[in-house]
């Protein structure tokens, strides 16, 4: 089952490689991983999307927590949380009809066209993974996708719950 893990860690050189190394060393799965410094530059916040049964997930959480650089890790999957991913996708936009249709689909998904060329539109969309997948599927029926990039998901708990020192 897919799980979303939120990690707060020291923003030290090598911290990221320790996490990535741990996952490969112990044959844990990484679906996506995002990391950036927080508002406190001495800390990094990471979101990992992974898959595994309860026993594997328990090991992942414990093993990550055991890393000296890691301050906290929590599995936010089962509690109320927000999950967002950013998609940038470049599509062919040749005819008036296809331009109109791409614009319409983008509006429906509440995306934005952020760059245009003679024959292309570049669209930005945020949402959870399902929404992004649905958008890509819909676009595919209308036009040709030239390239796309996804950020991997970031997650945060709803309400008062917070991951902080």
């Amino acid at each position: 089952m897919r799980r979303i893990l939120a990690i707060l860690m020291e923003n030290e050189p090598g911290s990221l490689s320790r996490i990535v190394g741990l996952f490969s060393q112990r044959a844990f799965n990484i679906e996506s991983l995002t990391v950036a410094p927080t508002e406190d530059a001495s800390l990094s916040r990471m979101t990992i999307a992974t898959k595994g049964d309860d026993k594997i997930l328990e090991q992942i959480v414990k093993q990550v927590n055991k890393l000296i650089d890691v301050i906290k890790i929590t599995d936010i999957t089962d509690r109320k949380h927000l999950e967002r991913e950013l998609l940038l996708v470049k599509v062919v936009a040749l005819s008036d009809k296809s331009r109109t249709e791409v614009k319409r689909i983008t509006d429906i998904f509440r995306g934005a066209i952020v760059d245009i060329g003679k024959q292309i539109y570049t669209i930005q969309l945020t949402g959870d993974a399902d929404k992004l997948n649905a958008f890509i599927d819909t676009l595919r029926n209308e036009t040709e996708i030239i390239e796309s990039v996804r950020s991997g998901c970031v997650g945060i708990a709803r309400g008062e719950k917070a991951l902080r020192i």
Partner: protein
Amino acid sequence: MNQGDDMTAELFTGAEMVVKSLSALNVKYIFGYPGGSVLDIYDAIFQQDEIEHILVRHEQAATHMADGYARATGEVGVVLATSGPGATNCVTGIATAYMDSIPMVVLSGQVATSLIGNDAFQETDIVGCTRPIIKHSFNCRSLADIPDAIAKAFYIASTGRPGPVVVELPKDILIPQNKGTFNINTDVKMRSYNPNIKGHPKQIRKAVSTIKSAKRLVIYSGGGIVLSDASHLLTELVETLKAPVTNTLMGLGGISGTHENFIGMLGMHGSLEANKAMANADVILALGARFDDRVTNNVEKFCPNATIIHVDIDPTSISKTINAHVPVVGLVDVVIQQILDELAATDFTPDEEVLAPWWQQINLWRNMKSISYKQDENEKIKPQRVVEAMYKITNGEAYVASDVGQHQMFAAQYYPFEKPRQWINSGGAGTMGFGLPAAMGVKLAFPDKHVICITGDGSIQMNIQELSTCMQYNLPVVIVALNNRSLGMVRQWQDMVYGGRHSSSYMESLPDFTKLAESYGHVGIKINTLAELDSKLEEAFSIKNRLVFVDVLVDEKEHVYPMHIRTGAIDEMWLSKGVKA
């Protein structure tokens, strides 16, 4: 110098800071080997006399020597190696310490920061190389990083579940041209690392009520007891509960090997009574042990009727291979004391009516004498007989550092260790070549004690160059090689599993080990027959001030028994050739 710096403060080079940091942390010995990137540190070592440097002949031996020193004393072992090959030669020793949770700090040189990433001469990313086999590591990039990194390295290596820490020191922060003020804070606190020490009171109460409900309790204790010096508490707990106790290979000496409640080592080459007791237990109290695959055999068949209480400082060890019904995270000495307190607070007295049938059953298994062998007078010497003779001569009080293979198992089975830290072996990694340098580390710490290196003709050749170091630093260990002219454990598996095909498992062109030892300036004693075994061994142990290499010709056909039947339950064992339990 920046404005605001104290103009009167004394300035030091990075190399001097390394040595001053180690002094501040009460380091007595560094085990190492010089080279380009660390010459400044060697120059700083030369100009002081608080710390002694031990020059090995290969960096791997430096790590094992520091490891043996740490295992015997409980202190942090310190290694110094140069960049590139010096550092990579440490990798096996770091992995060995990591697998057995041994506190160690490895200081590695590195090329200058301006050259890092350029494939410079003797450049290796040692922090990257060692990442999966260390507790933590530090890349120092400026003078000010040095004392902080070293203080933290010692703190991390020696607290919680101990382990090796690597500190990388680039050449340009060590050289005389760069100087700075020296400050070290040895009272380290880290927001990201707080080793949990006390067991949760609710879990303690749960553990105690489970123990009280047990009809067939077994205490299964491991290396954690040794590492946390909890032997006296374990003994008190065993005697309070009147329960049987088994030790892992790493836990031997955690309770006296001659204690009446001790039912031997468990696992692959453990005693039948230990494995049978585990298989038939209704409650297993695991103390500082980690359900290693060499203990459990097939996990699917592992002790299906037992409620498992698992005490460990490392949460990842709990429910990793075997699900724990009552997990307790905490230092094992602290938790045992909590359990003892809770037992006392609830007026515990052992129920003799419950204990009697359980002990009766265990004694039936004991009477099968699974740890036994046959020695005929006119046959070749059995390796087990050599271990028993060593035990008698040293009164069971020697430090025994072992290499890896059949001799290691024979030592574990036939030398009942009285105290913790007496038995020094590479249990987790199974590193051949560990024995001699580890024994040297022990001898350095305890020059007046008998220190044995038990080894084989295979293992000893993996670090035999250290005979030279022994001569230089006067480390008169007694090396006892059970020489069977083959890689005995490999050969045993080939006999049992591979149809007797001895693929690359025997040693052609062995040296004359006694002459080799003599050429280094040591004493060599050869033992060929049973008749001369006891007297020549006694002679070897009577020589106090010189290293003695005892080369014992043993029966090459002997196998280690009992032995787990592969894919079976913990108590499914071969008792001898073709005989199952």
